[in-house]
């Protein structure tokens, strides 16, 4: 009787120590699921999901506060990837968050720009170059197409234009669907 209690007690202590050691030795900093979700989001930082950026949205998904279908720039691809990651069923994009649009880039009409810096403050990725009372311009390669700079402009000199395909970005289209025997 005593031997059995002693043996079980010893085992309990030993395993407790092992678990305790493992929890310290293999401690994971931060929440890895948030990082994984964030890696799938398109990083436009546009806020269409209702959160101030992609990482806050990723945190909200991980915390169960947001659904996986709130990201219009990511579209179907992102929803499917998130569903895969989280083991949920994919669902159509929530229309309240916006619609899927072709990829855009912002362009400043440099003749109209008054150099107010409001768009520079709005840009979440610092893709606008300029200084007070000097013309601003957009670094197209860094622009995510989030449209956050459009509204603050007091002279409406920023427009969003779809990104044109060139022979380097062009890709083969999907083949037509097979014919089914009638």
């Amino acid at each position: 009787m005593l031997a059995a209690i002693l043996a079980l007690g010893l085992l309990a202590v030993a395993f407790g120590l092992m678990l305790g050691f493992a929890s310290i030795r293999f401690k994971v900093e931060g929440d890895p699921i948030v990082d994984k979700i964030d890696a799938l989001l398109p990083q436009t930082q546009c806020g269409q999901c209702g959160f101030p950026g992609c990482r806050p949205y990723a945190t909200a998904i991980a915390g169960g506060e947001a659904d996986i279908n709130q990201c219009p720039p990511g579209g179907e691809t992102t929803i499917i990837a998130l569903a895969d990651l989280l083991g949920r069923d994919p669902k159509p994009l929530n229309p309240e968050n916006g619609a899927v649009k072709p990829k855009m880039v912002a362009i400043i009409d440099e003749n109209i720009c008054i150099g107010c810096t409001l768009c520079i403050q709005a840009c979440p990725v610092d893709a606008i170059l300029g200084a007070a009372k000097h013309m601003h311009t957009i670094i197209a390669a860094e622009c995510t197409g989030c449209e956050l700079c459009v509204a603050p402009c007091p002279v409406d000199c920023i427009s969003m234009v779809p990104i044109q395909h060139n022979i380097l970005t062009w890709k083969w289209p999907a083949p037509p669907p097979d014919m089914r025997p009638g």
Partner: protein
Amino acid sequence: MSGPADPIRLPPEPPPKPRLWRFSGGVSPPYNKTMSSVHETTVARLPARLILPLHQHIGEAADPLVKVGDQVLKGQQIARANGYVSAPVHAPTSGRITSIAEYPIPHPSGLSALCIVVDSDGRDQWRERAPLGDQFAALEPSALRNVIREAGIVGLGGAGFPTYIKLNPGHDKVIDTLVVNGVECEPYITCDDRLMRERPSDIIQGLIIARHALQARQCLIAIEENKPEAIEAMRRAIEGLENFAVVPVPTLYPQGDAKRLIKTLTGKEVPSNGLSMQIGVVVVNVGTAAAIYRAIYHDEPLISRYTTITGTAVAAPRNLEVLIGTPIRELLEQCAADSSDLGELIMGGPMMGFALQSIDLPVIKTTNCLLALARSKQPPAPTVMPCIRCGACMDACPVNLMPQQMYWHAKAKDFEKTQEYNLFDCIECGCCSYVCPSHLPLVQYYRYAKGEIWTAEREREKADLARTRHESRQARLEREKAEKEARRKAKQAAMPQDMGQQGREAKQAEIQAAMDRARQRRDEAIARVQHQREPTPPASAAAPDGSRPDDDHQT
């Protein structure tokens, strides 16, 4: 019409036949080569206008060196290489630059890209030329490569990879074998065949130069057995040369693919995602070798090439020596093509070529063949049926892939799975589509899947950049906020602690006094103005409600 059914037997040759290996798969489509290969190559007429795309090769587009209105001489460089993987473009004839703008170029997308348009002056006048000649042997390989780079030479077999990079294996690699690709396995195409028959010594001279640049031990000239005249001509040209050999290889598509050819000649396989240099082999096309010779011995950059004009719509199929930039329309006219019955126009062969949208596109450095098919003679497009999993594609695949699995996953947009099946080892040779009993456009699925994967990769890179920039912006804003807070705190700390009620009142009084002084000065100024312009009392009218414009300055 020669078919795959009647193999041409070679007379026994003195050199012993080297051992050959066999790659798996492959197909034997009807070759249709004799219609153009029996005719002597002629020089195409000088066109009035040449359109030169700046992106005719793999890599970055070239940078224009000329302006609209400039006069250029034949062979003058008009666009320079932009970066390591790039090639310059030269004026194919003398004339005037009339436009530098976007024009449609021969590309599967049918999109436009920047081109330089040269209007010929008809004189075809060369720039000053200073051929290196036999002095090339005294040059360092790197200097030699530079000459080849400046001549704008790219792989003329169809891929258009800058040749000087191929000739640069790096310090750590020893190149044992230089393989010259005269296989030309695609149906219809005969430009390499004609070149080997007509200019064998050019090719051999080019090979001697390339071999010097690579410091390669031996040089193998691989020619498909269905070109006995070319084999004969090349054999005669290498007489007396050591470590040169002509190797007839079996007629089997895609024998001409570089990696298949290496397997056939050496039995070695290039590793997946690897380069042939890793196993000590470099493969160049015969046209490329001839272009190297022209560059070294005649100081002629790559401004012309052999192109096969053939197909059911062409009445007089043959090879033409064409200036790069010549509109395809003129070549079709010279070969008596029936433009009213023109169905599909393909650049390259029927297996790997792509359809062109217009006959006004120019010939580029990689245009080895223009295949014009008559609409009236084209069979109706076969009905695409579902995959029956017969596995015929798998047996035909020369790369040992599983085309049916890749098709399945590409169709389901499961691109990760296609990569697990080594999608990127696919050479898009079209053997699988050729044998498919359901007529599935398999290659199209693989190209689509590759494109989607590349796009996703680009987008992922862009997203990573955006994330980094966003995070550094957040960090900067935080830092600025903290700095501001620290400054405010420091200021507060610097202020006398015992200011108390009295101190604050004193400060208020000071501010009040300053405001009073300012108001007084303003009133005086108003009075002065009123005094000067007695009749109009605008200030007095505005004064009572205090909404004068200059009030703003005080706030």
